[in-house]
């Protein structure tokens, strides 16, 4: 038995070295595929149920089975979730939260990446005395629970008149995105050959010229990774949204939670699930389009400083 399993393992890059041809239906393979298949069903189930529930009428939900596909497909829950469902003050649906999230995410992603890429560039190529002290603080700061800092930040934002504004929230996202992104860019720019940098300096190029003319065009892939990482993180944020904005500016996550967990009125499960799916559309699209780059963004979090 042991021999069978070890034979199957790792045919090694050199197929020429002559392991037996792989049988597609060995006992081991059947077992692996069936386990993976069952697990895949478990991971996909919530998505499937969300989708099915969102396409059913309320009557069918009450009498039927959540796993059953809809007998009569209706898109009404989607329309209602997007345009007319009520959240406390207003009844213009989740579209408000969607546009708020866009207004929050776009500038936050832009500023956090702009600041962090310059940080990473300065830290890897223009090291000045004390730079690494601040970098270390930044990395340690990434582990401080947000709860420790949220209130003093409220005070700070109030002082500069940004509390409750989108601007304040953008600033908060820029600050809290800084550790991981700076690390990402610092590691990337450290791998750029030093000769390139030296040659540019010999030619008389200065800090910003080198950054914009040489480093920026070279670092496009890492910028894409950073955009994926930040867009997903900021779109999915709940805590900062609920603390640093006013209800009319609430991002989609906060609005979604208010819709589904409101205690008043009849629970419209189909509308709730349509709303939940709508909130997941942006990160899921990014995820499916980006593929391996998404994984690279995750791995960035795991890279040691």
């Amino acid at each position, binding site marked *: 038995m042991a021999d069978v399993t070890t034979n199957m393992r*790792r045919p090694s890059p050199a197929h020429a070295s002559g392991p037996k041809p792989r049988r597609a239906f060995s006992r081991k393979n059947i077992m692996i595929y069936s386990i993976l298949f069952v697990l895949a069903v478990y991971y996909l189930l919530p998505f499937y149920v969300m989708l099915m529930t969102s396409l059913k009428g309320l009557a069918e939900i009450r009498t039927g089975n959540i796993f059953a596909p809809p007998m009569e497909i209706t898109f009404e829950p989607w329309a209602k979730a997007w345009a007319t469902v009520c959240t406390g003050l207003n009844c213009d649906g989740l579209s408000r939260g969607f546009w708020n999230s866009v207004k929050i995410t776009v500038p936050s992603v832009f500023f956090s990446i702009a600041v962090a890429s310059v940080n990473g560039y300065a830290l890897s190529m*223009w090291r000045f005395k004390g730079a690494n002290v601040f970098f270390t*603080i930044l990395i340690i*700061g990434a*582990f401080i629970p947000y709860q420790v800092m949220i209130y003093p930040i409220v005070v700070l934002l109030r002082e500069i008149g940004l509390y409750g504004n989108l601007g304040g929230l953008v600033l908060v996202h820029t600050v809290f995105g800084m550790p991981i992104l700076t690390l990402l860019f610092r590691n990337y720019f450290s791998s750029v050959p030093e000769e390139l940098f030296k040659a540019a300096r010999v030619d*008389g190029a200065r800090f910003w010229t080198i950054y914009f003319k040489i480093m920026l065009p070279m670092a496009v892939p890492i910028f894409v990774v950073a955009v994926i990482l930040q867009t997903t993180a900021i779109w*999915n944020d709940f805590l900062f949204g609920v603390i640093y904005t006013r209800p009319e500016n609430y991002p989609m996550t906060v609005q979604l939670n208010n819709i589904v967990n409101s205690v008043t009125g009849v629970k419209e*499960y189909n509308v709730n699930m349509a709303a939940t799916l709508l909130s997941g559309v942006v990160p899921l699209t990014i995820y*499916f389009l980006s593929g391996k780059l998404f994984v690279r963004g995750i791995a960035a979090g795991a890279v040691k400083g």
Partner: protein
Amino acid sequence: MSQSGKPTALFKNLSAKIAAIPMVLTALMVFVGCSVWTIIYSFTNSRLLPSAEWVGLDQYERLWGTRRWLISIENLAIYGILMLILALVIGFLLAALIDQKIRFEDGFRTIFLYPYALSFIVTGLVWQWLLNPEFGIQNAVRNLGFETFSFDPLYNPDTVLYGVLIAGLWHTSGLVMCLMLAGLRGIDEDVWKATKIDGIPAWKTYIVVVIPMMRPVFITTLVLVTSGIIKLYDLVIAQTGGGPGLASEVPAKFVFDMMFVSQNLAQGFAASTMMLVAVIFVIIPWAYLEFGGKKHG
């Protein structure tokens, strides 16, 4: 070029220093400044607004005498330990299965990782719906003929944490798989060849050789998952709202409610300071293992 006179140390590399101002401000004002501010004000009797009236350790005494805080801590400990163990085990098993030179590897990986792209709010709401006893899994199984089947973890104070755990694992295990898979792929083929020649069975190779070799990956994963656990907040808000009763309260929610709902700022400060202390206890051994060990090795 610009070295006309003797540039003083301050003006050397000036552009880089100017460019680093946001980083310096973030590091000093937010990460250091705000943390210190919170710690200091945890010794005051701030209520609706921060006040400077010093009360020593009163807030901490009150905190540790508060039932809700004790429940929160206990919940986080139970959730955290189970989450760590299960996330690592499931993540590793998934990675090991995917690493068997299978077909559709990308497909499986995409399926296992997609929950991680969703927010905790979405995760919590889906699982709230699936675990709804009236319409969810329980009802579906009962419809199959198992009339007495019972599966409603969210409505029972004794089991609600496990309901949250199911959702948390669904969300996070893909991330662990991803990191573990990278670790497995980093292991030299020769290791497998050598153990194969020695006739060591695969499962034993994993336990005795591969896992010890993946120590850095395990440590990184441990730290990532742990820092996620301590932040646990959105998932509970969406899935249970802390209920039934206080049964699924967590520290992060306690802090938020004290600061922004109950107008009891100093209690929030004291509680968040305790969270910071907990993190320090996790980080220091890790930093020691990671960076202390490297210098000698």
